[in-house]
């Protein structure tokens, strides 16, 4: 039975629950905007990392370099797009 619940995955699940709880502090505590955003960014990206490495086995196949590059490239461009858009349309600089 225990082999059906491997330690790594259970830990990953618990960890993601903890991170969700940590993210919830921004709702319950009265943090400043910057502090709250830092918490959210940290918890969200760590959680994504947990999912990718722990659950999605991103590093297991022979194509891992390309898959990592694909993810990094995608995330980098996504961040550029989001922050570029904010820079142009919202922050107005």
């Amino acid at each position, binding site marked *: 039975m225990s082999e059906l619940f491997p330690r790594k995955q259970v830990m990953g699940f618990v960890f993601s629950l903890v991170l969700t709880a940590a993210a919830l502090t921004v709702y319950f505590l009265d943090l400043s905007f910057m502090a709250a955003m830092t918490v959210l960014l940290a918890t969200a990206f760590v959680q994504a990392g947990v999912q990718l490495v722990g659950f999605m086995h991103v590093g297991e196949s022979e194509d891992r370099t390309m898959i990592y590059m694909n993810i990094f490239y995608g995330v980098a*461009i996504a961040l550029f*797009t989001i922050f*570029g858009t904010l820079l*142009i*349309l919202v922050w107005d600089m």
Partner: protein
Amino acid sequence: MDYFDRFAIPHPSPAIYASMVAIGLTMIAIVIGLTYFKKWGYLWSEWLTTVDHKRIGIMYLIAALLMLFRGGVDALMMRAQTAVPDNKLLDAQHYNEVFTTHGVVMIIFMAMPFIYALMNFVVPLQIGARDVAFPRLNALSFWLFFMGAMLFNISFVIGGSPDAGWTSYFPLAGNDFSQSVGTNYYMLSIQIAGIGTLISGINFITTIFRMRAPGMKLMKMPMFTWTTLITNAIVVFAFPVLTIALLLGTMDRLFGAHIFSMTNGGMDMLWANLFWVWGHPEVYILILPAFGIYSEVISTFSRRNLYGYKSMVASIVIISFFSFLVWMHHFYTMGQGPLSNSIFSITTMAIAIPTGIKIFNWLLTMRKGKIKFTVPMLYSVGFIPIFTIGGVTGVMLGMASADYQYHNTMFLVAHFHYTIIPGVVFAMLAGLTYWWPKMFGFMLSERIGKWAFWFIAIGTNVAFFPMFFTGLDGQARRMYTYSEATGFGPLNMLSFVGAIGLAIGFALIVYNIYYSVRYASRDIGSDPWDARTLEWATQTPVQSYNFARTPQVDSIEALWDLKRNGKPVFQGEIEKIHMPNSSGMPFIMSCIFFAWGFSLIFSMWIPAIITTIAIFACMAHRSFEKDDGHYISVEEIKATEKDWEVLNDENR
């Protein structure tokens, strides 16, 4: 009757009725012809259901050429209308529809399929593969593109064409200012074609990463394969942005959302922003494959290896990344502060550096070469000066402060035609002429081809160089008319003359195809250009399985090494070959997509729901389908290869 009013053309003109009749007659002629010659079965089994990358490539090619002429006619109409001041040939509405469809057709439905035509045909051959990674998806990509294109093209006879420019800026493209269904066509047909392109992107990346011949490391891939890889990487990350932009536009137009509207918090600038987040990488999607083609052609006809291969690769990788960092230069004048403008100016101009590296590398490839001016080479050499003008004016446009004066003027129009015509059209014509013998087993006439080249090259300059001046003289783009007092008349007339030159050039290409089909020699061997890469190591016409034995590669120019240094490429025993089966599903599913798009365009909700369910039913069918492909037996391969490979083995 009210129900049918929506299908009427809002601004009819005799020209549109004439085209309606022409379309109808052509359709009838095709149906009669197919029936009379009993070709329906052939059409279905050999083309509509094929998953062979070569056939799909050829279908892309046919579609691209058709669209080239559709967009070309639009262009001629525009130049004719503006050739003289106060011209009455077209009215404002008609002119607006014409330049909108010209832009969309040329970018989305001509340039993109042309690129994918050559990628499809060449890349699997160039990397020594039997097909692409997902042949069935490849067919789906094509048919989605094709149905998207057809959907867009019926707009001018059913319901009216889009008229808000190919950039379709809101709120002009919103329901308040574009009341016809034209912009719905824009949103949905590009969406359908775009999904196809995205699938292609995934397909080609996987193909190139996983299906290269043994020994072909990444840094041993031919340059066209490299550019295909990077282009498709841009496709994969840029097209989702378009998908969302179009989805949001559809939400606004069909479902009354207020994303880009003038009221309830909507933001018109957001459309411009999203459109160009996709739109700028799209420019590099168009141009990178061209760079690959030029690299192949210049190297072949200079009889030299490509100079600075590594810096070429580095520069395309850098371009691909930078292409995502410059989109704001399309709207410097939208009221951002000087900081944003400065940042994006610098990134924009920085792209010129890797592009410049390429130009110099090509020149250095020709240096010490033995240059033969065949038609593909003429296009490649002609590309360099024209594109240089396009490139340097691009740097000028990239300078934000000066752009305040160039923006929205004919200067801009001149610039992007100076980049896109040599950067895409020349490249495609070069690639077409270069790979034509591999595709069809005969060569295009060099003599007619050279005439066509000169008409096109000179026509391009005559048509677009004057626009730099009218732009600086204050002629805004997209003006359907101008008064005599502006003084734009003579230069616009010159542009029109150039456009006629271009038209003659393209007509000559058609004539060339006709002429060569009839008279060209069929006895040209498999490598008529004395080329350097693997695609020329196949039989002509290429067998369905491409290579009887998987090639072993150990240099960038595998075939050249084979021919000059006798390095063996095809070794080992012939084994049975696994091939995918043909399938009608991609075609059928795309037809349903067509109906789906059409229903949504006209807000016909019940058919829209039915077709949506049908699309998912097709996907479910695919999930349950058992299709393991088929094998080609060793005997069969040996029989088809008998005359050819044995002969080649002896010669080499």
